[in-house]
């Protein structure tokens, strides 16, 4: 049977072809298909880490994590999505806005993964959904860690907040190669400490390796690696002091910074008014956000590092140091103050705040009574170049370097020739220099800069960079991070200043509070501890020649800003503060009153000493 034999040979040939194919698949390309098969069945589910807790210096939690429950849906699995959503409406009070948001959000999630549909379910909604769960096979309730700020408005400008990761965040994370740490995480630090220490707070996600079937349903768990929680952070902030200051500033547009001058720890940083960061955690509604944006008191604005104000007379101690060191004046130099200073060779007169003048004034007295004419002349003699150079050493016109600085801090302006040329395309005029001498003109500073300059003065020229982080409680990353042993910078120029000049400036500030002519003597009367300070009143509204300032006659937003810097105890300072009250009137009375209470609270532990408000008079001098 030849044909049958031929057929048999044909069968053999075809079987050999099959064997070659199988050899190729199962032996030659085994590892390729093996890998492929594993990829098929193994799915890695990220477990987002818990965010580190933020505490104040005494261990009071300022930012914590709560578990909230949200409704999640796998839209790709549901054929009649719109029907299901419509059915859900009544069960969990689903609004049209939430459905819209979900439809937008969907695109940001990979196919066949859970997309949040409704956040923060109430117990009642959870109960109602659970009863109806059988009708919604691909909708489930999931517990999520949720950032919560228990003190709400108190520390918003320091802590910032976390909010949804947006496209810009995503692009940045991809660029920094951190995006894989954010799989499964929906929120990221947007502002303040939450943003600056994002890497420390966030932690490292864990994962769950599960075997899934072809419909991505979990069959069993193969492996699990727990997430590493973010590190806890201890801030230098003293919550009690912060809250106390916040109460003092209630209803005012104001900023206060309190620093421990010994190490640069920021004890309090209050920008008033503030807003509730909790609004942002789940995404703020457009209506609420617009309300914050259009609020004339600008609650979103962090006045402590973004507000720029003319530092006014608070800069006089620093200028005195510069003038003494440059030999423009000596400790014995005496000028006669007739109530004005006339720019040589011109008719231009610059008035003192005291119309009839202070008479004979030396440098100590110039600080005690805040004699403007003394500083007009000193500024004239120093010139803008030297003035600007010295004030830059005190940190004016520079970022302070506080640990939320890089993204939010305003440098403000320490004017000089180049600056004016660049800004106004005009040459610097001699007349521009004179108001700079009393912290006015083009000069602006932030409350934090003013506090930092004060700590430099207290430390005889040593810079203690202000910082908010005290330390981290390290759990996984080995040694914790501490900012208290930061290298402290020293500028050679300031170190060359003679010790007695520092003493002159500090003594002058002491006399502001205790001298018979001290501008703040009434407010600081009967202090059980010793302190020093300097008032300032920044003009918002240029007075016409011979016009008398009367707060009652001009609109509130044109009134002067009240400023005050102070430190205590005088011999061994443990706190340095700067106070700015927008349109607060006189710095010596209104700013001083706030400063006194803060110092009392800090030094004495409470605000037991009452100040007789009736002794305060407007425009008492600054």
């Amino acid at each position, binding site marked *: *049977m030849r044909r049958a034999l031929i057929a*048999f040979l044909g069968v053999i040939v075809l079987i050999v072809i099959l064997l070659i194919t199988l050899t190729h698949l*199962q*032996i030659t390309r*085994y590892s390729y*298909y*093996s890998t492929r*098969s*594993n990829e*098929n069945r193994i799915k890695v589910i990220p477990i987002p880490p818990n965010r580190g807790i933020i505490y104040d210096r005494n261990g009071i939690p300022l930012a914590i994590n709560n578990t909230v429950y949200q409704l999640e849906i796998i839209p790709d699995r549901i054929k009649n999505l719109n029907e299901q959503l419509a059915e859900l409406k009544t069960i969990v009070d689903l609004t049209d806005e939430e459905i819209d948001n979900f439809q937008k959000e969907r695109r940001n999630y990979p196919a066949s993964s859970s997309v949040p549909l409704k956040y923060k379910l109430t117990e009642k909604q959870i109960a109602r959904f659970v009863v109806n769960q059988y009708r919604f096979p691909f909708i489930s309730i999931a517990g999520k860690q949720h950032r919560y700020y228990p003190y709400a408005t108190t520390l918003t400008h320091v802590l910032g907040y976390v909010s949804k990761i947006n496209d810009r965040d995503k692009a940045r994370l991809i660029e920094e190669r951190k995006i894989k740490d954010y799989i499964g995480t929906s929120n990221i630090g947007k502002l303040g400490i939450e943003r600056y220490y994002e890497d420390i707070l966030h932690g490292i996600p864990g994962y769950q390796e599960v075997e899934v079937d072809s419909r991505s349903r979990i069959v069993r768990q193969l492996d699990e690696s727990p997430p590493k929680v973010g590190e806890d952070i201890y801030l230098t902030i003293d919550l009690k002091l912060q809250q106390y200051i916040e109460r003092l500033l209630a209803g005012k547009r104001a900023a206060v910074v309190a620093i421990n001058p010994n190490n640069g720890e920021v004890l309090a940083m209050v920008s008033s008014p503030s807003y509730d960061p909790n609004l942002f955690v789940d995404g703020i509604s457009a209506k609420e956000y617009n309300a914050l944006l259009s609020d004339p008191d600008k609650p979103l604005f962090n006045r402590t590092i973004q507000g720029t104000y003319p530092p006014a007379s608070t800069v006089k101690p620093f200028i005195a140091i510069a003038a003494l060191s440059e030999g423009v004046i000596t400790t014995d130099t005496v000028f006669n103050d007739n109530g004005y200073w006339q720019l040589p060779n011109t008719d231009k007169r610059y008035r003192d705040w005291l119309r009839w003048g202070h008479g004979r004034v030396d440098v100590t007295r110039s600080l005690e009574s805040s004699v403007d004419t003394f500083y007009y002349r000193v500024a004239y003699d120093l010139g803008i170049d030297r003035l600007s150079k010295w004030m830059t050493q005190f940190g004016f016109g520079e970022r302070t370097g506080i640990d939320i600085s890089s993204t939010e801090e305003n440098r403000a302006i320490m004017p000089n020739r180049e600056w004016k040329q660049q800004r106004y395309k005009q040459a610097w005029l001699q007349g521009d220099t004179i108001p700079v001498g009393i912290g006015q003109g083009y000069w602006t500073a932030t409350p934090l800069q003013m506090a930092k300059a004060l700590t430099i003065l207290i430390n005889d020229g040593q810079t203690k960079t202000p910082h908010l982080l005290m330390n981290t409680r390290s759990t996984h990353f080995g040694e914790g991070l501490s900012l208290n042993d930061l290298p402290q910078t020293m500028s050679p120029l300031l170190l060359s200043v003679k010790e007695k000049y520092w003493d002159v400036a500090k003594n002058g500030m002491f006399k502001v509070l205790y001298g018979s002519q001290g501008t703040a003597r009434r407010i600081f009367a009967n202090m059980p501890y010793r302190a020093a300070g300097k008032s300032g009143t920044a003009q918002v509204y240029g007075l016409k020649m011979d016009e008398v300032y009367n707060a009652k006659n001009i609109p509130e937003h044109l009134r002067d800003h009240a400023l005050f810097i102070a430190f205590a105890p005088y011999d061994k300072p443990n706190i340095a503060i700067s106070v700015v009250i927008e349109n607060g009137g006189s710095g010596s009375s209104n700013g001083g009153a706030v400063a006194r209470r803060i110092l009392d609270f800090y030094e004495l532990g409470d605000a037991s000493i009452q100040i007789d408000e009736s002794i305060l008079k407007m425009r008492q001098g600054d």
Partner: protein
Amino acid sequence: MKEKKVSFWTKIHIDPLFLLFTLILLAYSAYIMWSASGQDPAMMQRKTIQIMLGLFVMLLMAQFPPRFYEQWAPYLYIVCLILLVLVDVMGHTSKGAQRWLNLGFIRFQPSEIAKIAVPLMVARFINRDGCPPSFKNTLLTLIIIAIPTLLVAMQPDLGTSILIAASGLFIIFLAGISWRLITTACILVASFVPIMWFFLMHDYQRERVNTLFNPELDPLGKGYHIIQSKTAIGSGGIWGKGWLEGTQSQLEFLPERHTDFIFSVIAEEFGFIGAIVLLTLFLCLISRGLIIAAQAQTAFGRILAGGLTLIFFIYVFINIGMVSGILPVVGVPLPLISYGGSSLIALMASFGIIMSIHTHKRMLSKNI
């Protein structure tokens, strides 16, 4: 003693060797089916019933002498054509194709009957005028083959129609037509391919062929099955992942894992070794079938037994070829192994006919 023993198998018209290989393959099938069905007892129960029914049909078919088949072939062929027309007109639609005829108590595929009816009819037609067939008879034979083939292709069921055509052509080949004719036919078929491609094939069939050559083009659509199947086979390696341990099949990445793609389950769980064992069993069965054909004493028996055996092998080749990615996915089950009643029973019926040819020859020779 020897005479008595032989007479026992002859009495019940069973070839013991052929039966042995069939039983081993059926056992192998049941073993892998437990895994491929996802350990579904109900499916195993039905599978067992199918095997029992199949064995009964084989036994039954073996009892009729070859002459009976030769006589009844034209009637079976005509009944088959009627049923195929009925299916096209009023058949039950399943997965977009009309293949099933629902008789109320049983659903079956008339195309399975065609798999038997066509080779029988062709063998009888050729045998009537003696082998090798004349040119005119060869042309007539081709028409006999073409009618049911086209009817099945219209259902549409490309895989089965190819098998039906092939079953007829094998008979012609074994009947000994000249090589010149075979060569001419091959050229004709080759030139017919483009016509089939552009005018006769459905879009989904063209897509399947396209997918064969580049499954990665559409990894989640048409190429998905091939990619998953190749992954299952390849990841089995030499020794396999073990029974019930195949992740591709157990986790349902593999489509139609208990029917057309059952070979992938075997290759994944039992590896290269398991596949070779299976192929060896098939080869044993085919060798025995061809030996039976060679020993057949009539031309009718010779060409029929050979044709039925070869078509059985073609099933095997097309199925394994398609799941391992060298042939298009045309929906041909793996004979004896895949789940499916109609197919198994038709196959066992053809085995019964082969056994009948073998076991009736002595009686035939005595009679003559």
